[in-house]
C-alpha cells in the first residue's frame, strides 16, 4: 500500500525557506518521530536548494523512501516524501496541484512571515490532502480513469460470458421448441386420422 509521509511547500527566492509542511509519521515508532521530522525538514531544504528552477527530481533513499521535488520557475517549490511504491506520476501531479492551490491562496507578500508552525493553522487543507492522497488513485486522474476502465472491462467480459451462455440456452430452446411443434403436428395428424377412418 503506497504511502505518503510528508508534503511541503518551500520558497527558493533568497535562500530556502519552508512555507508549509505536513507530516504523517504514524508508521514510525513514537520515539523516532522527532528525529524523522528533523530529517524530513533537512531533506526538503537540501533537495530544494539543489534543484534548478523548472526541474523535477526524484531522490531515492535506502531503497525505502523517495522524495519527489519540483521547483517552479517562479521560485515556489513543492516536495513530497513517499515510499517506493507510490507512482511517480501521481506524486508530481499532487505537487503541481498543491503548488497551484498554495500560490492561489497566499500571495507572494505573505511568504516572508510563514513557517510550518503558523501556516498549518491557516492552511488546514494541506493536512486533509495529505490524508486524501495516501491513495494514489485519488490524486491522479489518469490512474483513476485507468482503474475505472479496467473495472469496466472486467464487467464487460463477464457480461460477454453470460451472453454466450444465453446464446447456448437459446439454441437449446430452439431445438426443443422445434421438437415440440413437430410432435404436436403428429398428434394432430393422428387425431385427424382416427377421426376420419371409422365412419360408422
Amino acid at each position: 500500500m503506497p504511502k505518503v509521509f510528508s508534503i511541503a511547500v518551500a520558497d527558493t527566492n533568497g535562500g530556502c525557506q519552508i512555507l508549509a509542511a505536513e507530516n504523517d509519521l504514524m508508521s514510525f515508532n513514537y520515539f523516532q518521530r522527532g528525529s524523522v521530522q528533523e530529517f524530513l525538514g533537512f531533506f526538503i531544504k537540501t533537495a530544494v536548494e539543489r534543484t534548478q528552477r523548472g526541474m523535477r527530481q526524484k531522490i531515492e533513499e535506502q531503497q525505502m523512501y523517495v522524495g519527489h521535488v519540483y521547483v517552479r520557475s517562479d521560485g515556489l517549490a513543492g516536495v513530497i516524501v513517499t515510499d517506493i511504491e507510490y507512482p511517480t506520476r501521481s506524486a508530481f501531479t499532487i505537487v503541481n496541484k498543491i503548488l497551484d492551490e498554495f500560490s492561489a491562496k497566499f500571495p507572494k507578500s505573505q511568504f516572508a512571515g510563514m513557517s510550518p508552525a503558523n501556516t498549518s493553522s491557516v492552511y488546514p487543507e494541506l493536512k486533509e490532502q495529505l490524508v486524501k492522497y495516501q491513495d494514489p488513485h485519488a490524486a491522479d486522474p489518469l490512474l483513476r480513469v485507468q482503474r475505472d476502465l479496467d473495472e469496466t472491462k472486467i464487467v464487460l467480459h463477464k457480461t460477454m460470458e453470460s451472453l454466450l451462455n444465453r446464446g447456448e440456452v437459446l439454441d437449446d430452446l430452439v431445438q426443443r421448441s422445434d421438437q415440440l411443434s413437430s410432435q404436436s403436428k403428429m398428434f394432430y395428424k393422428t387425431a385427424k386420422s382416427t377421426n376420419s377412418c371409422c365412419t360408422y
Partner: protein
Amino acid sequence: MELNTIRDRSTEFHACVDSLARRNNLSNSRLLSPNQKQNTKSEFTKAAAQIAREINATVAKLHSLTRLARKKTLFDDRPNEINELVMAIKQDITKVNRQIALLQNHQRQQLQQHQSQAQQRQVQQHSAGVIASLQTKLASTSSEFKSILEVRTQNMRDQKSRRDQYSAPSSSFIAPPTSTLATASSAMNTSIFTPASVSSDATGVTLFSGEFSLFAPAAPSAHYSSLYNPDHNPYAAVTTSDKLDDAAADGLRNRGNGNSSSVIEIGNQQVFMPQQNNVATMEYIESRGQAIESIESTIAELGQIYSQFTQILSQQREMVQRIDMNVMDTEVNVVNAHNELAKFLDRLQGNRWLMIQIFAILVVFFMLFVVVA
C-alpha cells in the same frame, strides 16, 4: 485596410445619450419623452447598424481567408497571413457577439423603463427581430469560419504528408507540437481548433483534458539536432506545418542550450513548453504519455467489445423469434388436435348410442324369430 480604422464608439454614444436623457428627464419630462423614445429607438438602430457593418467586415475577411486557404501549393503557403487573418476574424466574431449581447441587455432595459403598452409590443417585436437576424448572421459566419478552418487543416495535413514523402528522415518529430496545439486550442477556448489537434500520425495522443498536454512528450535527443540546426532546409526542419509547430521550432531554436523552458507566443497567448534535460521530468512526461496511450487502447477495446455485443445480440434475437414461432405452431396444433378428439369423442358416444339401438332392434327381431320358430 480601411476597415481597421472603424472604431466602435457606440458605447460612448450610448453613455452620452443616457446622460442627456437623464438631464432632460430632470428638467422637462413630458414634452421630451416622445423625443426620448425616438432617441432610444434610433440609438438601438444605430447600434444594430454598427453591428451589421462589423459583421459585413468579418464576412469580407472570411472571404479573403477562404481564398488563401483554398490554394493548394506546396511552398507558397503563407502561414503568417493566414494566421493573422484567423486571429482577426476570431476577435471580430467575439466582439460582435459581445456587442449583440450588450444590445440585447440594453434593449431589455429600455423596455423596462418605458411602460406604455401600445408601443411596447411593437418595439419589443422589432428589436427582438433585429437581434435575432443579427445573431443568425453571426452564426452563419462562424459556421463558415469553422468549415474554412477544417479545409485549411485538411490542406495542411496533405501538405505535411507530401512533404514527408520528400523529406523522410526528419519527419518523425511530429507528436509534441500537435499536443501543444491541443493545449493552446483548449486554452484559447475555441472548439474550432479541435479538428486541427487530431493529428494524423501522432502516436495515439488524442485530445484529453488540457492539464497534462502542456508538457510535450519527450523527444529523443537525436531530433533536437534536426530542429536545432539552423542550417537545415527550413521545410525539412519544420516538417509539421501547423502554426504552433512554427512557433515551437522557433522556441526551440531560441532556446540556447539546456535551459529549462521556452515561452512561445501564439497569437495573444503564451504556452510554456518545458524541454527538460533531466531524468525525472522525462520519466514523468513519458509515463503520462504511456498512460494516455493505454487509456486510449482500453477505450478502443471497450468499443470493440460493445460492437461484438450488439452483433451477438442481434443473432440471438433471430433465435428468439424462431422459438416464438415454434411455440405458437405447437399451440395451434394442440388446439386443433384437441378439437378433433372432441369430435371423435362425440361421434364415438353418438355411435355407441346408435349401435345400441340397432343391437336392441336386432335382438328383438331375433327373439321374434326364435319365439315364432
